[in-house]
Each structure stands twice: as structure tokens, then as C-alpha cells.
């Protein structure tokens, strides 16, 4: 081998960028779908919440005369988005960071940019699986989404994914892995109970009603419900979600530490 004598163009030595990113996305997706705890948070938990809220009366929700399954499913989809983009991604990235995986992959042709792109694509792939599973269960329970709301709902889901992935990277890139593990699960529970994901902010008790509307979770839940219930996407919710996305993306880019 005489590669030392010549200097071939780097583009000839590395796989094409799209193939590197796709490989990373596939690797990340398989990692989530193979991991028991991750599956529990991303698939089992949302389905259980969907069944719990529609088949039992444990939680009081004022559906405003709408079918309960129609009212609950958009919130469950919002929860699924947060569980994958935030909780699952924060934990995975934090441990990859602690174990040096981020540093090692940054030395391969994938690079840091490719790693981030691969992670984001991986999140979207897992979300696709979630939508298929949750959608199938909801449809079996009689869910009738507003047909005109599906496209806006996809856009809102993408914005929510960007927002919560940025939050995940902010935590994973600044805190210890064990801290992220605890915090990411705790935040998910808090957002489910009082963050306006499942229960509309205005139905939450006391000051939470005002607060939750301005949380990314409340905004995501409200926008998702508005789209899929056919009542119209509230512009305020989209503005709040976009503002959080910009802030968190900036903070993640600014404070993320690779090692």
C-alpha cells in the first residue's frame, strides 16, 4: 500500500455525507428500539396513558363536548414527541458523552455536524414508529382526527421535536450523566402532570393555568389539539413554541460540552 506518497482528496476517502448521516440515524434508532427502558418511555408509556385516559375516569378532563378519544390522542402524540426528543435523547446523549462516544465519532468522517444530524433523524424515525403504534391504537378506540389538521400537526410535531431535542442536548451537554438520567425522567413526569401536554393549561389548578400556556409543553399540547381537533391552531402556542426553540437551540449551541 502506498497511500502515504499521494494525498487523495478527502472526499474520496470518506463515505458521502448523506450516507454517513443515514448510518448514524439508523444506529441511533436501533439503539432506542432495542433498549428496554427507552421502549418503556417512548412506546409503552404513551400507549398506557392513552388507554388510561380513555378507558378509565381516573383523570377528570373537560372535553368541551368532544369525544374523549379525539381530545386525548393529540396530547398523547405530544407526550410521545417529548418522550423521544427530550427524555430518551437526553439520557442517550448524556451517557454517550460520558463514555467518550461523542468524542470518538467526532474523529471519524461523521464529524460533529453529522452526529447531530444523525441524532435528529434518529429521533424522527423513532417518532414515526410512535405515531404508527399510537395512531393504530387510537384509531382502534374510535379516534377521528380532523383530516385538514394532519399536515399542520406534522409541522407542529417537527417544531416540537426541534425544541425538545435542543433542551435534551442542553442538559446532556452540560450535566453529569446520572443527573441527566434523573432530571429527564422527572421533567417528563412534571410536564405530563402539570405542563399542559395532556390536560389543557386552562384546566390546570391555580397559577399553573397561566404558566403552562407559556411552557413549550403547554404550547405543543395546545397546538396539537387545535390541529387534530379541527378547532384551529392557536397562533400564540406556535409563537411560544418557536420562541422556546430559538432560545434552547442557541443555549445548546452555546453551552454544549463535547467532553
Amino acid at each position, binding site marked *: 500500500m502506498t497511500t*502515504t506518497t499521494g494525498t487523495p482528496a478527502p472526499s474520496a476517502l470518506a463515505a458521502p455525507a448523506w450516507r454517513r448521516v443515514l*448510518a448514524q440515524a439508523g444506529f441511533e434508532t*436501533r439503539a432506542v428500539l432495542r433498549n428496554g427502558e427507552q421502549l418503556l418511555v417512548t412506546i409503552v408509556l404513551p400507549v398506557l396513558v392513552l388507554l388510561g385516559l380513555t378507558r378509565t375516569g381516573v383523570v377528570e378532563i373537560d372535553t368541551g363536548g368532544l369525544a374523549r378519544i379525539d381530545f386525548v390522542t393529540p396530547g398523547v402524540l405530544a407526550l410521545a414527541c417529548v418522550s423521544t426528543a427530550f427524555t430518551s435523547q437526553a439520557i442517550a446523549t448524556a451517557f454517550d458523552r460520558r*463514555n467518550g462516544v461523542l468524542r*470518538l465519532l467526532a474523529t*471519524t468522517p461523521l464529524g460533529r455536524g453529522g452526529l447531530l444530524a444523525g441524532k435528529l433523524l434518529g429521533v424522527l424515525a423513532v417518532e414515526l414508529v410512535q405515531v404508527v403504534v399510537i395512531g393504530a391504537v387510537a384509531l382502534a378506540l374510535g379516534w377521528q382526527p380532523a383530516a385538514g389538521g394532519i399536515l399542520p400537526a406534522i409541522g407542529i410535531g417537527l417544531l416540537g421535536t426541534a425544541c425538545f431535542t435542543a433542551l435534551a442536548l442542553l442538559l446532556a451537554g452540560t450535566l453529569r450523566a446520572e443527573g441527566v438520567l434523573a432530571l429527564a425522567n422527572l421533567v417528563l413526569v412534571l410536564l405530563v402532570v402539570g405542563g399542559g401536554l395532556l390536560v389543557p393549561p386552562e384546566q390546570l389548578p391555580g397559577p399553573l393555568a397561566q404558566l403552562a400556556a407559556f411552557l413549550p409543553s403547554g404550547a405543543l399540547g395546545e397546538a396539537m389539539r387545535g390541529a387534530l381537533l379541527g378547532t384551529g391552531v392557536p397562533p400564540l402556542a406556535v409563537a411560544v413554541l418557536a420562541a422556546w426553540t430559538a432560545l434552547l437551540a442557541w443555549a445548546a449551541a452555546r453551552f454544549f460540552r463535547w467532553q
Partner: protein
Amino acid sequence: MPTSIAPSGADGATSSARPAEDPRADGAGAAVHVRGLVKRYGGRDVVAGLDLVADAGAVTAVLGPNGAGKTTTVECCEGLRSPDGGSVRVLGLDPVADARALRPRVGVMLQDGGLPTGARAGEVLHHVAAMYAAPRDVDELGERLGIGSFARTTVRRLSGGQRQRLSLAAAVVGRPEVVFLDEPSAGMDPQSRHAVWGLVRELRDEGTAVVLTTHLMDEAEDLADRVHVMDHGRVIATGSVPELLSPDAQDDRTLRFDAVPGLDLTAVGAALGSTLDGPLDGTLDGPLDGTVAGGPGAWTVTEPQPGSYVVTGPAGPRALAALTAWLADHDVLASRLTVGRRTLEDVFLDLTGRHLR
């Protein structure tokens, strides 16, 4: 610097790859060229003006005690850290500014592994290979390093040596021109170590520049064409192993023996010194470290561990006789006695000191 006494292979491979120049003259044509590197953490200089050269087709060892700055130096070469001073060039490029161009040409094995713990070993190797246009045959490489037997095991469950072998495979799967291996044999059993050493030699013979950090003397001695001995963030000695063993001391031999602890080192030195021509001036220091200077050669007698003695000097048959005679006079039975050459470890300890850190 003389190049004629480097171990076989190194110079042949280098000169055939670069017939028109001697890359060692000023390091300009070297695969890795570090000049005056400075890296600070919290105001402390971890690397303090370090110079280092590594050639294509050669194994370059960075040898040093823990905390000497080896890993930081290598990480600056890998583009993982930005230097605070000095210059780093890998294949003529800046590892940070030209990272995109360098990544496909440089292979890295990190000290802490960096392997995703949840994935299977074989999957990790295939994944890293997918980043390159023309990677090595993954199965063939896996077989070379014995990865096939644990390819379906998750990284989390691998032993230390298995992880190291997988990390090495990941570092070389993209056919890099420069490979950085940070303590490649850490935690390896002897079989793994020899498999790794074999692969490193093969990479060298193929023309790859291999840079490895180690604190294992035998690794540096067996593998390296050039050794940079590092301490406190600087290179304190550079050369091939024969050069480091010092031409003046080429005839020095080491007598090692085990006996009851606490022998009088000064007296042992004096007994050996009597085998030399000329008068002794017996300058001695410390109860555990006696040095007797005597003419052209000097005897050093130490007891690195209680009951284990090392005598270094121009030892011939008479010195051996003098030593055993002294032991007999003092009614001491040596349970083991060996005669050997001065080793890199002796040089290393001379350079970096014997205190623990």
C-alpha cells in the same frame, strides 16, 4: 540525529516512501509535526512547549508516567483539543482548522474507548466502517483481532481487552494514513497484546504513521522505531531505543538478584568496584541507593523493592564472581540471579525519577 541504528524496517519503509528527502532533518515532511505545543488547564501547563515528530511507515511511542501530558498531546493532534500555544501539523494540516479534510485520513483509539455501550461489537465496527468510502474488510479485520468470537455481544459486556481490540479495529478500519493509539494495551491479556502488536507492525510496514502512548516499557521497546520520553509536559529524551539506551552505556549490563531485604548497597557497590581498574572515589547517597563511581564505568546498586536488587555497570565474569563472593562472605543466598542488558525501563527511571506519583 543519527538514523543508522534505528531498528530494521523503519528506515527502509520511510526512505522508499519519500526517497527525495529525509523527513527527520527538520520534521517538515513528517506525518505528525508538533512544535512548542502548550496546553493549559486552570492556569497549569499540562503540556509545556513540547516538540514531537512522527514519520510515515514508523511506530512512534510517546512514553511517560501518568500525568505527563501524553493524552493531552495526542488529543491536540487528533483535533479534540485546541492548543494554547505552538503548532501542530498532521499530514501538513491543522487538526482543528482542517478537521474535515483530516478525519478520513486519521484513525483514533481513545484511552476511554468511546464505544457505544448498548450496541453489539460487530455492529459498532460495521457502523464505523460505514463512514469511509473504502474501508478494510470488516470480517477480515475482526478475525485478525479475534473480534468474531464476541461480535454479537454488547459492548457493555465485553472485557477490558476485548474493548481495546474493538477500539483498535475501529481506529484502523478506514485505512488511515496516521493512527493515534492512546495506551492500546491497557487491560489486555498477553494473547490480545500480541495480536495488537502484530497489527501495529503490519500498519507500519504498509506505510502508516503509528503514534502510540504507553507507560509499558516492553511495548515501547518491542514496537517503537522512535521513542519520545515525556515528563511534566515536555519531551525529555528522543531517539530510537538503541539511541536511548545510550551508546556510552552499550556495554553496561544489569545484574538482578533476589535475597534478604536490607543488604548494604554501599558495600555491594564497593565489592563490585574492586573489579575495576583504578581507584574508587565512592560517592554514595541514601541507604537505598548507592552509587560508586569508578573510572570509565560506574556501578549503580539499587533495591527497587525490598529484597530485589538491581546492579548496573560494566559487568563481566569477574563482577559476577565478585558479587557472589560478597554474598557468600555475608552468608546471603541469592534466590535468583540474572544477567541482562540495560533496559528502556532503566533509562526511563533514570530520566523520570523513581518516586511514586
